[in-house]
């Protein structure tokens, strides 16, 4: 082992500061969410209590964030399932050359670079002109997919770029049909990576704000509800909600990580190295 160069410590300190920068504000509101019952939105602390967390479970003066939370959860799952299945399908297709592949690729990428508010506005306008009602599960769902699908597809590209095709060819040589090859060879090999796509799909949807803003209709999703609360609430219950959603997000990530770890361990046991070298 070589000796650590001084730059290591310098960069390490920089990294530590960066982490502090990333987590600092979240910690601030984490602390403030334990304000006493008479505390406000800013320091100083006015006693300490779990009053505002308890308050979360009571009826609020305005709004309904448990409803919003359950809508976000359902929408997140819908988006997650669609994103995983559609990106896998598209990822498989893009391994072969087909006419229109380039145009479709650029269309997908453009979905990432078009500012979200424009997508939101455009989808809202279409529904308005067609005289359809915007709903979180129709227009909102579609608008969110334009954000999660490109990410999903890009990850699938990364996966298939590193995919060893010889397994597949071996299966074909043994007489497996196209579907059998996909079902019994390709999918099990890429399964651990799909966890990543699923995590992306869920959290991008769960936290999506701009694309949902004009497409969610009369019922709010959680980020819209939080946005509403920033203008409607003057108590630390807002921070309690923030702390809780952050904890929930962290919980989801942990579940995915554990699951991914388990999948990887399992595939390693089965002598599969498809996941190697992928972060």
């Amino acid at each position: 082992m070589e000796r650590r160069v001084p730059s290591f410590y310098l960069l390490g300190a920089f990294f530590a500061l960066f982490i502090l920068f990333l987590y600092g504000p979240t910690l601030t509101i984490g602390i403030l969410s334990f304000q006493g019952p008479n505390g406000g939105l800013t320091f100083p602390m006015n006693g300490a209590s779990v009053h505002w967390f308890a308050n979360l479970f009571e009826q609020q003066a305005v709004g309904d964030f448990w409803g919003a939370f359950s809508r976000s959860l359902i929408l997140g799952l819908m988006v997650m399932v669609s994103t995983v299945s559609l990106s896998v399908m598209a990822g498989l297709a893009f391994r072969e050359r087909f006419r229109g592949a380039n145009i479709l690729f650029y269309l997908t990428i453009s979905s990432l670079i078009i500012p979200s508010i424009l997508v939101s506005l455009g989808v809202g306008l279409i529904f308005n002109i067609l005289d359809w009602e915007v709903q979180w599960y129709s227009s909102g769902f579609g608008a969110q997919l334009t954000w999660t699908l490109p990410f999903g597809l890009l990850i699938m590209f990364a996966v298939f770029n590193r995919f060893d095709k010889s397994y597949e060819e071996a299966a074909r040589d043994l007489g497996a049909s196209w579907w059998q090859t996909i079902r019994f060879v390709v999918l099990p090999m890429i399964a651990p990576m799909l966890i990543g796509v699923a995590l992306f799909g869920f959290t991008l949807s769960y936290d999506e704000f701009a694309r949902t803003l004009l497409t969610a209709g009369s019922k709010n999703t959680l980020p819209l509800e939080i946005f509403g609360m920033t203008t409607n609430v003057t108590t630390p219950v807002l921070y309690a909600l923030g702390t809780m959603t952050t904890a929930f997000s962290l919980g989801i990530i942990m579940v995915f990580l554990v699951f991914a770890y388990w999948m990887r361990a399992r595939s390693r046991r089965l002598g599969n190295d498809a996941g190697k070298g992928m972060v």
Partner: protein
Amino acid sequence: MKKIPLKAALSRRSVLKGAAAVTGAAIGSGAITGFPTIWAQNIKNVTLRQFGTGVSNLNEFAAKVSEDLGFTLEMTALDSDSVTQRAATQPKSFDIADIEYWICKKVWGAGNLQAMDTSKIKNYDKIVGIFKSGKLTPESVIAQGTAPHSVGFVDGPNGKSFASSETGWMTLIPTIYNADTLGIRPDLIGRPISTWAELLNPEFKGKASILDISSIGIMDAAMVCESMGEVTYGDKGNMTKEEIDKTMAIFTDAKKAGQFRAFWKSFDESVNLMASGEVVIQSMWSPAITAVRSKGIPCVYQPLKEGYRSWGGGLGLSANLSGLELEAAYEYINWYLDGWVGGFLMRQGYYSAVPSTSKNYMSEDEWGFWFEGKPAQGDIKNPFGKVMEKAGTIRDGGSFYDRMGAVACWNAVMDENKYMVRKWNEFIAA
């Protein structure tokens, strides 16, 4: 939501029609017994969807509605802009619109609301004059701007243009209103404030704020410019292009000089600005003041010599409502004016459109403090049981007649509205 088949509802309606006025009164007081059972059960299946600003879309109301009337009221609280947007563009998303009068003026033409038959409104006669003739007392002078009575009536059930006097068909049933002025932090200012012009006083550089809702903000701006003597208006509520230009120029200069700390869009933002000390003088709404004070921070709703800028809101019915749901909506409105809600709103610092019924739901001390401007005998609590004012305090600005009698202008939508909105946006962007 469970919809009643239209046909069934219509046939039922013809039966109910005659009885509605009588039954309405009974239902309004919570006595459901004695009704044809078929209706008593059906009305439980009705769900009315209401939206409006956070001030009056409280879940407490929905709970009380299901207790008293038996049907379900779904509430959505939004900011002013979203409220306007929904009233104008999403007629399918609501049954009852809880909007302000200036919003009504803007969106009535969209045809998403239907006029209401005042003969079905039990307490119509007790509604204060402001919403009917425009006059608080027979001697009052009508203030400038979009005064509620001027957009409160239309010619008939399908009327498109506003009528100048009472017609029996109301656009909005008035529910809530108030007189607004500047809020200040007396502890941080340390001297008396008596005029709107103080908002742009360089002494408060970086510590002033104004609200960023054009139809309301422009009126605050006009009050300031007029009191500074910089601009003379023909009618503040209906400015000419030059008047708009002059007003916005003064405010743009002030903004560039760093007068403003922030602009706010909902009243809770103003609470946070004031409570944290970021701002010491700003346009503010009454409950925001009480919210700051309830945190133990001194804050005064400063009466000013030029008078108040006032606003009013009411309930409008979606044009899509018919049959049983429409009947339920009338029941709901009658219930609204029956006093319980009024008392609830008054105890937050707003005024009820029918003060006489609200009085029944307030203690003598509360009525004395909030309405009559008398010193509080004991601690004054808000509807949620939190102490707002200590014994001995007097409401800023005094009694109902002192405050509503000194209204200088109403929130307004002008003929030059499109131009004004552009200029306002340019001011915000400057």
